[in-house]
Each structure stands twice: as C-alpha cells, then as structure tokens.
C-alpha cells in the first residue's frame, strides 16, 4: 500500500512537470525525490537501513543502501493525515501519550506492520536519547543488527577522531550485511556531490536572506534535514540547484515569496508536519513569512573526498542540538542577525526535551538581541492534540505585538 502511495505520488508529480515544464517548482522536485525515497524504502527489493538523524547518509548512499531516519516515517504519516491510528496503537501498547509524537508514530507503524523491515540499523546517540531507544526497539522487534554511532558533544580533535573511527567501522558493518565492500572511488564521487550540494545550499540560504526574501513559509520547510538523506547523490544536487535558480531569479527581480513581506520570522526546531492553517494565517493576514529555519543552516566545512571520515564526523557533531545550549543559542542568534528577523516561533514540540527543555534560555538568549520568541505548545506530529483556536490567538497576538514594535521603530 505505501509503495503504491509513493509511486502514485511520483507519477502525479511527473505528470504535472511534463504538462508544464516551464512552471516546475523546486518544491515539486523536492517532493518527487522524497516520494522516490519512500518508494524505495517500501520496495522490498532494496537493502534498507533505518538510521539515526545524524548518520552519514552519503556513505550509505555510496554503499547502495536505501536509508532513512525513523522520524521521517512519523512526519510522513502526519503529512498524509494517517498518523492517528498509529499513535493510538503505540499508546495501547503502553507508550505514554506525552512522549515524542515522531517516535510514537514510528512504534505504532512498526507494530501495525507499516514499517519496512530493515536489513540492519545504524543509530546515532545524537540528537536525542529517545530516538536511540526507538532504534533499539525496532532492532529488537525485527531481530536485526544495530550499529550505534556514539556522537560526542564537543568538536575537539579527539572527539572528531573518535567518531571518525566509528564511521570507518560502520562501513565494515555495512559491508558485512550487504556483502559489498566499500568502493573508495564511489565514496569519493559521493563526497564530491555532497560538497557541491553544500555549496549550493549555502547559496540557497544566502538568497533566502534577501529583503524581500524569495521564500514563502513552506518552500524551505524540512529542507535541510530532508536533503541530508539524499546527500552524495546527483538528485540532491539537482533539487538544491533548482531552489537556487528559482531564488536567484526572484532576488534579481526583488520578488517576495509571499507578495508583500512585512514581518520576517524564524521557525525553531522542526515544523508542524500535518496540514494546518498557521503559515497561511501568518502570510495572508499579517504579511509575516517564515524566512529562516533553525535547521536550514550549513554548520560544517567541505569534506575532503580523499579522506572523508574526519569531515563526516565533524558534520555530525556540528548540528545545533549537539553540545551545550550556549552553542545552540549562538547559532540561533547568528541566524536571527543574518536573516534580519523580527521574531521567532518555537513550537516546543510535546515530549521533546530539546524542544521544551531549553525554551526559557532560548527565549532569553534571543531577547538579548531584541528578537521576541513565541513559545507554542504543539505536538508537531499528533494532529489530535492540535488546538487551532488557541494557537491562532497566540500567533495573532504575537504578530500584533511585532507590528507595534516595528511601527514604533
């Protein structure tokens, strides 16, 4: 069923693109690659690995393994409106309703037989221990081997070497399970594509910072974190280039992504994954556009294609969620200043310690540079907990406040 869903999605996008090639939105190309990945995961013929969020997907792609972090399943089920029954299944099995919706959805999908059986799993100890526990649960359920990448919290040289050695070992683990040894030339080619993707992504983010911004509130939603799954592939480069070209054209013409841009916002952590009216409300009623996402950022240097392991390790360690909260706040401040923001929205995803644990410090940190933060209390996956009226009032009051600030100069 899921394979057919993804194939139909790919077919529908292809038809739309063939019908009107001149009007191809980069978001359509992005959606097509996501659907293709979904189709491969459910094909039953590919080597499949379930992974942690900061696994080196370019290495897995270079070794012919279709791989994905498990949270993708939670987000996908939420976006298709089907997540409720899977969350209920997990809750009926004893997973508390106030734990992370991404992880509850994955557990429910696994228990209902909707999770493709992996050949093996590669967990990462970052960004969250909840995700690691889910990976251990899936490995136990399917009786498959689990390799854990222990991601250090700091970027010291010894930490980088420690993780790089683990990634080297990981390639051996993969070979043992696929029967195919690592081809250094293929890996080199994949890393070159990763570097090209990185260069283009930097351009995309640079263009998004323009005033007015060429983005609307949806175009770059989930972009950085999903494109990580495609790193090392030509499709990744193609999709990012399409975004770059579209944005470059808009910036040259000084075209805003939403018509008249009045307020510029940042979305902290992950987006709400199910259909909701809040982004439309912001844009249509208030001219407020989400131009920046916390996770749409390049936090790592180009990787040496000849000797990639330390570069790969640095990349995994560099995510904003890793390390002390000071590091994350510094990242958010930098984003706020680079994008010339008026405010930020933190969904404070229910059950997420990263989303909620440091919200006070994040709010205070951004306040120091004059950026107000709206803390919502929203489950980004579980639409059953979505209280539209309450969230609408918070968002409207926040934009009214930002408006008054702006008017007063």
């Amino acid at each position: 069923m899921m394979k057919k869903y993804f194939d139909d999605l790919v077919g529908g996008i292809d038809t739309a693109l063939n019908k009107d090639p001149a009007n191809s939105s980069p978001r359509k190309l992005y959606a097509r690659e996501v659907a293709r990945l979904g189709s491969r995961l459910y094909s039953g013929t590919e080597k499949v690995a379930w992974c942690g969020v900061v696994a080196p997907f370019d290495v897995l792609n270079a070794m012919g393994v279709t791989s994905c972090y498990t949270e993708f399943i939670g987000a996908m089920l939420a976006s298709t409106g089907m997540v409720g029954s899977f969350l209920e299944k997990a809750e009926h099995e004893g997973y508390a309703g106030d734990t992370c919706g991404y992880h509850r959805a994955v557990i429910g999908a696994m228990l209902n037989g909707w999770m493709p059986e992996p050949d093996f799993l590669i967990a990462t100890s970052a960004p969250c221990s909840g995700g690691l526990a889910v990976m251990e649960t899936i490995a136990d359920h399917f009786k498959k081997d689990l390799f854990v990448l222990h991601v250090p919290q700091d970027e010291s040289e010894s930490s980088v070497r420690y993780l790089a050695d683990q990634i080297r070992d990981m390639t051996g683990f993969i070979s043992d399970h696929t029967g195919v040894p690592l081809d250094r030339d293929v890996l080199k080619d994949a890393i070159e594509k990763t570097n090209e993707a990185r260069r283009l992504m930097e351009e995309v983010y640079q263009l998004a910072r323009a005033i007015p911004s060429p983005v609307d509130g949806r175009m770059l939603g989930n972009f950085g974190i999903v494109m990580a799954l495609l790193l090392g592939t030509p499709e990744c480069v193609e999709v990012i280039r399409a975004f770059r070209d579209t944005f470059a054209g808009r910036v040259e013409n000084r075209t805003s992504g939403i018509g008249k841009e009045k307020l510029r916002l940042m979305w902290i952590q992950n987006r709400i994954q199910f259909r909701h009216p809040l982004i439309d409300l912001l844009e249509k009623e208030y001219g407020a556009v989400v131009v920046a996402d916390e996770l749409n950022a390049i936090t790592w240097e180009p990787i040496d294609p000849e000797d990639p392991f330390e570069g790969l390790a640095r990349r995994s360690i560099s995510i904003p969620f890793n390390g002390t909260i000071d590091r994350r706040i510094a990242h958010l401040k930098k984003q706020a200043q680079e994008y010339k923001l008026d405010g930020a929205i933190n969904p404070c995803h229910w059950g997420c310690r990263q989303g909620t644990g440091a919200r006070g410090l994040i709010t205070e940190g951004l306040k120091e540079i004059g950026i107000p933060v709206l803390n919502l209390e929203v489950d980004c996956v579980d639409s059953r907990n979505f209280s539209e009226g309450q969230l609408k009032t918070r968002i409207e009051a926040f934009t009214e406040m930002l408006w008054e600030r702006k008017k007063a100069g």
Partner: protein
Amino acid sequence: MISEDNMYYMGIDIGSLSCDAVLIDHDGNRVAATVVPTGARNQEAIVRAGDEVLKHAGIRADAVIATVSTGYGRDRVGHRTAAVTEITCHARGIRELNPDIRLIIDIGGQDSKAILLGDDGRIVDFAMNDKCAAGTGRFLEAMARTLEVDIIELAELDHGAREGLTLSSMCTVFAESEVVSLIAEGKEVNEIVAGLNRSIASRTLSLVKRVASNFDGLPIAMSGGVARNGGVIRALNRVLNRGIFVPDLPDTVGALGAALIARERAGEKTLVSA
C-alpha cells in the same frame, strides 16, 4: 450629518462565558458597557450585547463609526471593522484605565494570560495557559457547582480560612474529585475555597514568571471576569506580595480596549484587519 459630538466606537469581546460590549464617544469616554452570557449561540450573544449597549447609551446603530471585535469568537462578529486579539485589547484597555501598569493578569472564562508592557505601554511579551481550563472561570464554575454554592457567593467564602489547605491537582476534573474528597473528610467550605484560590494564584504566578522572572516594582493589574472574585484577588495579592489594581467592570476591559482601538484606527483611516 454625523459630527464628532455624535460619533461612537464599539468594542465587542466575545468570550466563552460572556460577551461584553463597550461603547465610547469620540473623546474616548466610556458611554455604556454591558455583559451578557455567551450561551450556546455566540451569534445571538453578539447581537444582544450590541443592542443592549446601544440601548443603555440611548444612541442609534448608525452613530457607531467603527467596531473592533476581540475574544475567541472575534471572527464571528459580522459587522466588525477589524478583529484584534484579546491580548492586545486588554493591554490597550488597562493602559487607558491606569497608565502606570506594566503587568496584566487576565483570567477569563477559558484561558488566562500574563501580559508584560514596556514603559511606553506597548506589549513586550505575553504568555497564555496551555490546553487546560485550570484556574479559569470555567474551573471556578465547576468548583462552585461541586460545593453547591453560587459563583458570586464563592468569591467571599474564603474568609476565616486558617488551615492553609492546597489542592494538589489543578486539572478541573481531578480538582473536582479532590474537592469531593475534602468535603467527605469534613473540611470546612471556607478552607476548601481558600485552597482553590491559593492554587489558582500559584498557577497564575508561574504564568507571570514566564514573562517577567523578576517582577519587583512592576505595577500589576488584573482584568477578566475572574477579577470579580475577591478571594482570588486576595490570594494573588499574597503570592505576588503586593496589591494589584482591579478596575471597575474588569470583565469589560477587553471590550474597552477594542473600542479604543476602533477609535484610533478610524482616526488613522487604516481600517484594515491588523
């Protein structure tokens, strides 16, 4: 022809428990105010509140130049010039009544808010209760029902309490069963009511601290229907360690703010939503 002498501005605050309307004249003076129960049909409440406030003022509907709606049903007011959130409207209303206020506690029928104002009266930050009616008007209504007392009577029943009772749960449903247990234990009603008020005050304090971790020296006001409850005010005075300003007609502060915004926007000739 309409002259400034007979130009009026209306604010309508359609909340979950009550629908409030305020009419002001061109100079910003409150001419009339009314509070009607929202009931099950908020459209009817909107019409009734509008009609009543016009009747109290003795003016015709066509003398109303602009109407701003607020409250959870603000988008349901058909004849509105603009819809503005209750956070902005309560801030505007309080600023008019007492310009010194820097922190507002608004507890209405189904939600509670803390609003921090800057020196210039603009909103600096705000926080709202989460998806739970604990500590709101609905909560007090449920407790009054359990205690078999009138909601107005409830406001004074804390007098003479000495035990310092607290309720461990603030969930409306669990708190109700806790109150039932306390009744069964033979606790006096005034002790239970004082405990309820203490719990509301404690919950409100955490909301206040979310917008102002240090609120020393900040003059505080309270608006919303729950501000009519003297027991809650007394409990808040204790946890905040100061007296708080409670205006006359605290439940109409949002509607007053809405009317003032209607007047300002009419003056600016920028009658667009937000």
